């Protein structure tokens, strides 16, 4: 990687040609992260999104313990369809289940499905993209044709068709389904990064020193492609949360009694005239969560873009 000129001078003048891990070098390397971090922090919208995600995670995972609203499935017909009030801040549904507890439980499901499907998609996408870009030729051709197929079929149609066979309401299957549908764009991205990065001198240098193919791919090239991958991963989370909510809304995803924001909207919809709060809370949660992930993704893109001028 390029060592800043200043460091080079220090090395040449004071320390001689052998490269040691001097305090100056360490400081310089940390400052690269620092620059990115500072750029990100300057983007108010992105910081707002990050803070919202942090608060949301705390709300969904710690909320039940702090507020005591920890029984999302408890049916109390004597408390049915109550509007928001102090004991039930988000109201109750038609069988008297506490909506705050359900929104938190649904949030855990939606966030976990969104995040883990992103991780699975990323593993597949990075793996396939890396092999295609690195080896080129026949491997590239074969892998990219599969990617083309995955990109050509409208994902909602495929998602619904797959879900009638494989989903049966289990969250793990839904994670895998969503991952199967979202790895392709990451694979494309990683492939194009690898195609250009593998021609760089540092790869040749590492190869000369005896680094094997796998080592070159995952220790040397991949870290240099990290920026675009991180950005696309962030945007994938938002997209996958929408996927999950659409699937659950149409009854092919997470099934009742297990709460998810998508199936809560679907359940609240027939009662919208008498109890609109049943739709509002989960709908706004989906909306703001996806918005936040998109804002953070865009903020990261700007922060990681080396061509963006310092303002």
């Amino acid at each position, binding site marked *: 990687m390029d060592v800043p000129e200043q460091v080079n001078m220090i090395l040449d003048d004071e320390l001689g040609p052998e490269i040691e891990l001097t305090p100056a070098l360490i400081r310089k390397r940390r400052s690269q992260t620092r620059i990115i971090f500072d750029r990100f922090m300057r983007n108010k919208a992105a910081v707002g999104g990050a803070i919202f995600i942090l608060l949301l995670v705390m709300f969904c995972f710690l909320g039940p313990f702090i507020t005591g609203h920890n029984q999302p499935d408890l049916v109390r017909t004597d408390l049915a369809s109550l509007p928001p009030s102090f004991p039930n801040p988000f109201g109750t549904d038609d069988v008297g289940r506490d909506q705050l507890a359900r929104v938190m439980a649904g949030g855990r499901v939606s966030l976990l499905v969104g995040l883990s499907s992103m991780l699975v998609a990323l593993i597949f996408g990075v793996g396939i993209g890396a092999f295609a870009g690195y080896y080129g030729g026949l491997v590239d051709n074969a892998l990219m*044709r599969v990617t*083309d*197929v995955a*990109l*050509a*079929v*409208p994902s*909602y*149609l*495929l998602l*619904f*068709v*797959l879900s*009638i*066979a*494989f989903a049966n309401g289990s969250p793990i299957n839904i994670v895998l389904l969503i991952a199967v549908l979202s790895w392709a764009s990451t694979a494309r991205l990683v492939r194009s990064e690898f195609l250009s990065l593998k021609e760089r001198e540092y790869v040749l240098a590492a190869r000369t020193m005896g680094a094997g193919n796998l080592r070159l791919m995952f220790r040397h090239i991949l870290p240099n492609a990290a920026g675009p991958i991180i950005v696309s991963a962030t945007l994938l989370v*938002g997209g996958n949360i*929408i996927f999950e*909510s*659409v699937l659950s*809304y*149409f009854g*092919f995803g997470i099934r009742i009694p297990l709460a998810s924001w998508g199936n809560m*909207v679907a359940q609240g*919809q027939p009662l*919208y*005239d008498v109890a609109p709060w049943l*739709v509002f809370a989960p*709908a706004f949660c*989906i*909306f*703001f969560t*996806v*918005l936040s992930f*998109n*804002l953070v993704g865009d903020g990261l893109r700007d922060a990681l873009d080396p061509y963006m001028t310092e303002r």
Partner: protein
Amino acid sequence: MGRYILRRLIQAVPLLLLITIFMFALIHLMPGGPEAVIFNPRLDAAGRAAIRANFGLDQPLPIQYLKWLRSTLTGNFGYSFQNHLPVSSIFAKRFPATLELFVLALFVALLCAIFFGIVSAVRQNTVLDYVITIVSYFGIAMPAFVLGLFLQDIFAVQLHLLPVSGRETLGMSYDFFNSLLDQALHLVLPVMTLAFLFIAGWSRFMRSSMIEVVKQDYMRTARAKGVSPIAMLIRHALRNAVIPLITVVAIEFGGVAGGATITEGIFSWPGMGSAFFDALNARDFPVLLAWLTISACFVIVFNLVADILYGVMDPRIRYD
């Protein structure tokens, strides 16, 4: 150019074949696939064998595929399990409704996106620009079913301005003019829902492409020779800035067969999407297979159209 189009067309053929193979295998190998649906559980072994033979399911999968491919290429997609109609006739009945909805939404979205894109590019970093930016972020983050639900509630349920769902008022006979009006009113909400999602993405796109063009030298030349600012925007800048957007629209149009599924599901629009949900609930595999294949073909064809359009509209692009 001609050779480029020809080469791309030839390249598209193996991809289309690959897609049909994948989709056919998916539908037939899925647990609970066609075999599980057409069998009456009380059928004995001999009855099963007879049905299998009747549907051609006793043959090896590759043979089944080739037979299916042959009939598909002649426009025969098989018969629906649900009502035994030819799939092609279901498609012929449903596609016009989807086309109407989709084309209208794309058209509205294109006009709005160009307008908002230009406004926020020209008034860059003003309050107006920020408002448009915020609204488009909202649009990107809003799932179609939430947006459709709220629009339905506000305009149809609360204000009684527009019909809730469907394509026309059932059980009413209007004269020509009123029936046209009735259909137009039914279109408004689905078109709004579908278009809003496109506008959100495209106006951002238009904004950045417009900002890029306005910086070019020829813009300054035009200004210097006395072209008025409005003419400069419309005649000089827009023509170049809109090129990338047109290709995006062409790609998006490839989603016509599958892209409106969710909107159609919310508004019970009697198009491809509603037929898809019917088929999904009935496990009507011939219809599902045809829908997957057709929608993928549209995507591939319009990706190609987008690439070609790009070359036609921007003579600087050279294909060798």
